[in-house]
């Protein structure tokens, strides 16, 4: 497994390189944002450990560039700023996990293992509907190439609609597939989730068929598989 370690602090880099090496990773190290971006762009890493406070280009920008270029390598961000707003902006840029400094080396290793397990076997058949794409194995969705930030309930709703796109699906049917147990089976909640989904994927993709339910269709003029 190849890991890219991006950290500007000399001592911390040395320690982490040692620890990662001991854990069986092949480690490449970058000490600034420019180098990190270049390495991440050219080498096929399995996972990236990215410090956010970097010289030249900051970590969030590096991550944003990778994601814009279609790199899906899982990224764990290290941040000294433990504020949730920083974590949120890291996630918005495309991070998969975060770790607040100071941290225990064992925890970093555990998080990396988890990330690698999750990302294993990502390439799989994706569902698509117009500019919407959904990868059921990775549980990720995109609209016009932009990653969608969905909660698991929203994701499940979208998944079901995409599997049955073009067909009108009743609220009752959706409720049954949204919740695994007999929990909160109130069909009004479907309206709530459809409303949230529309906010995220665009208002016109999910059509309300009065009295019957909902239908997912590609937008007019949008070709499938973009």
């Amino acid at each position, binding site marked *: 497994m190849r890991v890219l370690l991006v950290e500007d*602090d000399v*001592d*911390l880099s040395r*320690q*982490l390189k*040692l*620890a990662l090496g001991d854990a069986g990773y092949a480690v490449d190290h970058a000490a600034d944002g420019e180098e990190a971006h270049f390495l991440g762009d050219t080498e096929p890493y399995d996972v990236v450990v990215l410090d956010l*406070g970097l010289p030249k280009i900051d970590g969030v920008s590096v991550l944003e560039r990778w994601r814009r270029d279609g790199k899906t390598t899982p990224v764990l961000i290290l941040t*000294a*700023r*433990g*504020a*949730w*707003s920083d*974590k*949120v902006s890291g*996630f*918005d840029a495309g991070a*998969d*996990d*975060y770790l*607040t*400094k*100071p*941290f*225990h*080396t*064992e*925890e970093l290793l*555990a998080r990396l293992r*988890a990330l690698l*397990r*999750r990302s294993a076997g990502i390439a799989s058949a994706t569902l698509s509907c117009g500019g919407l794409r959904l990868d059921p194995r990775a*549980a990720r969705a995109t609209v016009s190439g932009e990653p969608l*930030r*969905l*909660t*698991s*309930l929203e994701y499940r709703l979208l998944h079901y609609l995409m599997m049955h796109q073009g067909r009108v699906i009743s609220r009752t049917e959706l409720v049954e597939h949204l919740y695994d147990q007999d929990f*909160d089976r109130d069909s009004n*909640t479907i309206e*709530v989730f459809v409303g*949230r989904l529309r906010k995220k994927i665009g208002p016109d993709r999910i059509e309300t068929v009065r009295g019957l339910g909902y239908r997912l269709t590609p937008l007019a003029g949008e070709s499938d598989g973009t």
Partner: protein
Amino acid sequence: MTEGAGGEANPEAARTWGRWFGRPGRSLTRRLIWLASAWIVIALALTGWMLTSQYQESALRRLGNMLADTIDEVVIATNATPESVTVAAIPDAKTDRALSGEYWAVAELDSEDGLRFIAGSPSLAGEQLAVPRDLPRRLRAATGTTISYNDPGFLHPPLRQPLRVAASLKSLPGRAEPLVFMAAIDRTNIENDTRQFATFTWTALLILGLGLVIAVFLQVQIGLRPLFSLRNEIADVRKGKAARIARSYPMEIQPLAEQVNRLLDHNQETVERQRTHVGNLAHALKTPLSVMLAEAGSQKGALPDMVRKQTEVMKAQVDHHLRRARAAARAQLLGERTPIAEVLDEMAVMLERVFEEKSVEIDWRAPDDLGFRGERQDLQEILGNLMENACKWARRRVRVTAGPTGLGQMVVVVEDDGPGLPADQREAALERGARMDETTPGSGLGLSIVVELTRAYGGRITLADSDLGGLKVLLELPAAEA
């Protein structure tokens, strides 16, 4: 806005009452209205007094002229000799008719300053005109002039007639002793006229006065409207409905509005600067702490153990004090409104990703228009820590519900289906902050920062059992009006 409705009987009405009838110094409106009203009342009262007294005077003057004419006629008709005084008939029917309302009399002064009537008009019907005690003396003092006075009415009921009397001391040729000529006229009509005029005048002035006071009231209300509207805007800023003063105002108070905005900006700037300092300090300290932790962790022995333990303490202290400073700096900030649904969504998406291996499912519900009256970063901090905590302990499910409770408050409930927390440990958990989550990996302190921030916002946090099986955290926070 129903501020404190239910508590005080009706604060709006009380305020209106106070505005008009309290101490004048405390309200501009009141001051302006009272001042204008006082001037109006004084000016109108003066006008009324002048009009009525002028009218009365001219009425009396008219009466006086009539009386003088009568006296002249009597003088002409009088034939005086040292022995006798006779008055010929005056060609005027009115003084000939009994109790007609017009009278005359001729008298002479006797030695003891009294009057002795010599002749009288037939209208007197045997009665005598009343004479004030000092009249003879006054007549003697001013021979030839006419002295007028009011007589309350010399005649018996039912013909009580208040009279206006004129008396004049004149010397006639043919008689050495001067004679007193008197004429009297009923003043009932004149008095009625005067009274009617006064009633009319005062009514008209009262209507005019009321009209003016209403006009002043309206003028003040309309004139001060920009001030009231500015006050409402500032209140909106305080309640978190608006961030700045947005409307434009008349040039007299526009500078005030601008100063308020500048103050808000300054406030914002100060807070931002403080946050930057705090962040820089955190960043500067945390990387060295990481190095120490990693270095100590890689070696065995008493010294590395001690370093590791102390580093943990330092880390906790740094977090604690920095967050405390941040919490204190922020809670005073005005005018912020954070939509809670947005924050819940970003937290849910992020935490589900972080806890993906556990496949934790976060089900959140909040009305779209519900806002937190405070900083977005603080709400992120509060909800992030609570939800992360819930995710750590949950087996699979985390539920977050937020809703308004009225009175500018809202409640957020975070529940999980984990093992929960026994009732006797809850108090301690809140007191000490969140040492209890040390058994699951990740930094502690989650709950302590939540408690601190919540308190800084004047909110409240309670722990209870969830029907999902785990812990239920109830959070009361200030809500911003939509």
